[in-house]
């Protein structure tokens, strides 16, 4: 171990010499150039952000590094050694490690066992040496700066802690191979704000240990917080390579999208200020909610803020009937909504977009067409057949209205679409019903900037047409950008309400964390 520490110090001193040096990487697929003469340098101790919209070539670049794609031209050197393209073994042996959104941890096993799975348990006479394994696990976790008990089960960890465990596992490598370059592909896409902070600390610590970190993200606000430098790809071309600090958000967006793009207009608030509430929730109580009451009027976009565990992630699902309700009343235009299931909420005019689109949002193996019309088939039914021409026409219209890409491919299965387009399809499913109340959990999680703007535009338009829109989001920027009013939850109870000019990122965050500084937020 002492030798290893020495080596680390030596490497940290060498800082500035690129650990990862890609030169002129070019990769064409029939019809497109995914990478066009891209250079990329990542030094020891550096966190390098790689940014780009869906389809910009980011994933192709990562897959070149991991040995999945063979580029048409160019070269990659890892710490001076040439990478053999198309070979994941070469990539691994040279010290490249990858952490994807799916962390590939076994949830039913302990942290220790997860860490040992890859490289093997220390054993004597074919029996696992428990204490040695635990000691080793502790060292690995310490090296990654993750404060987790190795005896804990992964299922009991917070999302950021899980990512930390994955980092610890990646850093371990073999005894013979040191980790030199760590590639993290959108590790924060599904993490709530407080967890993100924790994870970014881990990433900084890893880089301080002398590893070069290539960090892929859609979240622009964290670039300045964690990265030293950044590279922006657009349509396979490197359009920027700069220091991360001091880069303005608008400049980044312009680089990503390639043109000036307007932030969507904000809803203006209740259409008729004194109007009757469209949705009223009275004393809603569940496992994670404590007598929540709130109202929403036509034309309002109400944000729901709060740290993880505040009830923010459960409120909308409970109103809708996705999660069980212990007590309380939900009414739409004065009519009570039955608590016995989502169908009652849908027939009362409520639409709900869940946070996890893969497991709760869409039926991935069915055509987009069938997903789009699933919530209401009655208008398409003319005995004895469903009217396909009419269904196709409706799909075409929604594809047009929400600029869903690829255009008019609604007979393809949903899984074939990119995250942003899947989300637009699922939003269209609800917009089609012309809901009176639209509930959205994390509507733009893991969605590219252009799709995000489109979704926000649609939400605002829906409110303008007289619906009440409620958005629960861990992305405070999002709430500040689109909401007319924000309700902040704390320990299952609404503790603050911000309106008008007070809907600001800093105020929302302050209220969400409570007035006194909260120590551990995970």
């Amino acid at each position, binding site marked *: 171990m002492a030798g290893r520490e020495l080596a680390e110090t030596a490497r940290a001193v060498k800082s500035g010499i690129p650990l990862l040096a890609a030169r002129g990487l070019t990769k064409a697929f029939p019809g497109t150039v995914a990478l066009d003469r891209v250079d990329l340098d990542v030094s020891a101790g550096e966190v390098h952000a790689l940014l780009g919209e869906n389809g910009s070539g980011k994933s192709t670049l990562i897959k070149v590094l991991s040995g999945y794609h063979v580029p048409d031209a160019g070269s990659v050197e890892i710490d001076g050694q040439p990478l053999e393209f198309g070979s994941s073994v070469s990539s691994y042996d040279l010290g490249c490690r990858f952490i994807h959104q799916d962390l590939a941890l076994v949830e039913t096993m302990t942290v220790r066992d997860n860490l040992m799975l890859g490289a093997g348990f220390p054993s004597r006479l074919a029996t696992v040496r428990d204490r040695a394994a635990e000691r080793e696990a502790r060292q690995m976790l310490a090296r990654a700066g993750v404060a987790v008990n190795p005896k804990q089960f992964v299922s009991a960890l917070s999302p950021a802690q899980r990512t930390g465990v994955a980092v610890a596992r990646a850093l371990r490598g073999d005894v013979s191979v040191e980790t030199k370059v760590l590639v993290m592909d959108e590790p924060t896409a599904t993490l709530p704000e407080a967890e993100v902070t924790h994870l970014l600390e881990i990433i900084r610590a890893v880089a301080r240990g002398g590893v070069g970190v290539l960090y892929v993200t859609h979240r622009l606000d964290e670039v300045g917080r964690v990265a030293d430098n950044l590279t922006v790809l657009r349509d396979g071309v490197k359009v920027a390579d700069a220091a991360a600090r001091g880069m303005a958000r608008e400049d980044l967006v312009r680089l990503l999208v390639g043109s000036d793009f307007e932030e969507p207009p904000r809803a203006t608030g209740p259409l008729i200020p004194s109007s009757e509430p469209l949705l009223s929730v009275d004393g809603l109580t569940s496992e994670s909610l404590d007598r929540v009451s709130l109202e929403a009027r036509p034309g309002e976009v109400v944000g729901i803020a709060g740290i993880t565990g505040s009830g923010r992630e459960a409120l909308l699902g409970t109103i809708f009937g996705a999660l069980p309700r212990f007590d309380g009343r939900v009414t739409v235009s004065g009519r009570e909504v039955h608590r016995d299931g989502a169908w009652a909420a849908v027939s009362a005019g409520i639409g709900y977009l869940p946070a996890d689109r893969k497991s709760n*949002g869409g039926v991935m193996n069915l055509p987009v067409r069938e997903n789009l019309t699933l919530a209401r088939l009655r208008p398409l039914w003319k005995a004895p057949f469903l009217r396909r021409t009419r269904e196709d026409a409706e799909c075409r219209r929604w594809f047009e209205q929400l600029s869903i890409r690829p255009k008019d491919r609604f007979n*393809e299965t949903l899984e074939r679409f990119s995250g942003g387009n899947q989300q637009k399809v699922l939003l269209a499913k609800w917009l089609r019903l012309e809901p009176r109340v639209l509930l959205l959990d994390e509507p733009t999680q893991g969605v590219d900037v252009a799709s995000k703007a489109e979704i926000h535009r649609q939400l605002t338009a829906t409110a303008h047409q007289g619906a009440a829109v409620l958005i629960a989001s861990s992305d405070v920027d999002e709430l500040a950008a689109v909401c007319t009013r924000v309700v902040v939850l704390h320990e299952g109870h609404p503790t603050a309400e911000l309106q008008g000019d007070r809907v600001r990122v800093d105020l929302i965050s302050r209220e969400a964390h409570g007035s006194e500084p909260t120590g551990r937020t995970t």
Partner: protein
Amino acid sequence: MKLRRLNLGMDRFSGFYLWAAMIVLFGIWVPDTFLTTSTVQSVASQQAITAMTGLAVLVPLLAGQFDLSVGAVVNLTTIIVACLQTRSGWAMWPAIGVAVLSGVAVGVVNAFIVVRLKVSSFIATLGMATVVTAVISIVSGQSQPLPPSSAAWNNLTQTQIFGIQVVFYYLVALALILWWLLDHTPAGRYISAVGGNPEATRLSGVRTNRWVALSLIVSATVSGVVGIFYSSLDGPSLTFGPTLLLPAFAAAFLGSTQFRPGRFNVWGTVVAVYILGTGIQGMELVTGVQWISDLFNGIALIVAVAFAVWRQNAAEATRTRNNARRRPGSRDSQQANPPGGGDASDGGVGPADIAARDASAAAAETHA
């Protein structure tokens, strides 16, 4: 472009080519016995029973549920309809009515266990199959009832139309009804959505329990009717039912590789049964041994599922490549003609997933 479309045809209709190849092969090998009207007749009517059972299991499979009690239900109604007529002296139609109702009843119980007690359909229907077997013993007194002798009873399935027994046309009618139900009605949409992702479907406002229940009741009802046909066609048997189970599942899974690869479908199932039936008939004529059908059906089930899994992996690899090359706003020609079928990955459930999920339990069932 033209070439690609041709490949797609090979992909989706490979079963037809296989079928044609088998007919040519056996036609050359044993022309005297294979290329005869009696072979056509026997394959058409015998396999109609298997095909209808295959259609019965197809409906719950589409909803993501296994119905392992279909074989037992076929046997139950076979025995009930015969016992009522020959031992209790009932007329034909009332006997048929009661027998079918007993099938429906099993479906209702299955649905209750799965939807209300929330027992997995695999366990629920496996248990029910055994319970039904006990009921068969009680009803029959462990002895095979005599076949009813009325002409109407025999004519029910054995009347010949264009040289083929009428039971074959019942299959065609059933296939048309299920094709309509599953492909052209909201019920079919809901059933396949539940099978793909139950939670997402529930959160779309669909009353998923209802459709799961319906699918199990449909399968038991169809099985009940199949039992009547079997009893009329071949006479009441105490042991025939369970032997139908494996060919039925083999056909449904093999069928999911045809017409609409990656999805269970009516016509694929029917065609798969006849491909298997033709192969078995031909091999039996060539070799003269009886164990061919077990061998053939068992291998077919495994090959069909292995093929579905392989195809899914191939499709995923293609998708990964496609995603990498997709650009915002550009029409991606690759998207139009996926070389593999689009079945499930995360969140979705396709035939391959269903097969993999309960693979070990399936092994247990074949011993039961």
